[in-house]
């Protein structure tokens, strides 16, 4: 599902507009499978699956595959609807330089939840 994140984000003109000041690379960790996602001016310009020897990114979101799969359901159950819900339950860790993430929180929440749209199809 993560491989589709670029086309899902870029197809949403309003989401791209909201992220127009975002220029960073972040990482998603599903168990020990890593993916780097490069964002420029709100558009996802590169999605690179690992493994990596020395990955360079600003922040990483780590959770198990089971948690991500629940999170990416079109209508997740209570407790799995939001990144902060997972963090509070210690089911997800957000690590690294959190400035781009927190400064564009509404944008990143929608980017990271974008695979739900694919699941809904």
């Amino acid at each position, binding site marked *: 599902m993560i491989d589709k994140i670029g086309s899902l984000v870029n197809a949403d003109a309003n989401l791209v507009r909201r992220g127009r000041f975002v220029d960073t690379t972040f990482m998603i960790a599903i168990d020990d499978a890593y993916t780097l996602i490069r964002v420029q001016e709100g558009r996802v310009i590169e999605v690179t699956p690992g493994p990596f020897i020395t990955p360079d990114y600003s922040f990483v979101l780590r959770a198990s595959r089971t948690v991500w799969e629940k999170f990416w359901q079109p*209508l*997740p159950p*209570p*407790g799995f*609807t*939001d*990144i*902060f*819900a997972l*963090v*509070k*339950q210690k089911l997800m860790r957000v690590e690294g330089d*959190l*400035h781009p993430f*927190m*400064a*564009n*929180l*509404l944008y990143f*929440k929608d980017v990271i939840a974008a695979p739900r749209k694919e699941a809904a199809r």
Partner: protein
Amino acid sequence: MNPRFEPITGRYLHLDLLDRPHRLYVEEAGVGIPLLCLHTAGSDARQFRGLMNDPRVTSGFRVIAFDMPWHGKSSPPAGWQDAEYELTSRDYVRMIVEVADALALDKPVAMGCSIGGRIVLHLARECPERFRALIGLESAAHTDPYYDVSWLNRPDVHGGQVCAGVVSGLIAPAAPATERWETLWHYMQSGPGVFKGDLHFYMIDGDIRDRVDDIEIDRCPLFLLTGEYDYSCTSEATLDIAKRTGAPAIIMKGLGHFPMSEDPEKFVSYLLPVLEEIRAL
């Protein structure tokens, strides 16, 4: 659309609050038993717009909501620029009692959400005789910090954007888009550091876990309503209060942390039976 006014009136109330002069914005609608509504951290009394526009509520209740000092259209006290805003349990209880007195409310019902849902527990313990009944929306005896709240007030992060971002996931997924974004807009409009200052009460000072057992619901009836999607004040936390106090608790399907604002119609369907019970007291 034909232009129309809502039945809500808003006025500015001057009063001494916490021993200092204050200018508070107060809204109300309806007639009957006074129902004093307490908004969530970092927001304002607009959260109760749905209640104040619902004749099923306002036909029997005088619904009153004030913007806390620093919030909405209320001013911070003079000299605010020289101190960091931090809400405490002591000040919050006093504020509610002093506002109720200033408005000459006779044994009002107090209904609060989130921080308001917490403070009604303090009211239940400290001054139950002053209230006809208490309604806790999204009540938990304590919430541990689950993110670094310093992100909410720093010059290199837009405060309105980050505050709305932090709370956005607390709204139930099926909430109507208009009400969801209205709810977030209120957060986007909050002054710098106000949400963070409220969270001092919510995550630190307002911890009432060790005193919940002291609440006697026969001195003042307490009703608890919590949205199933609320991960900040969880259903489990509310049910724990219910178990320890004997207060009835309802877990509201399809609602989150801001029931009265994110989906007023659905929330009122849960609230009406509670209001009926209160009318019959």
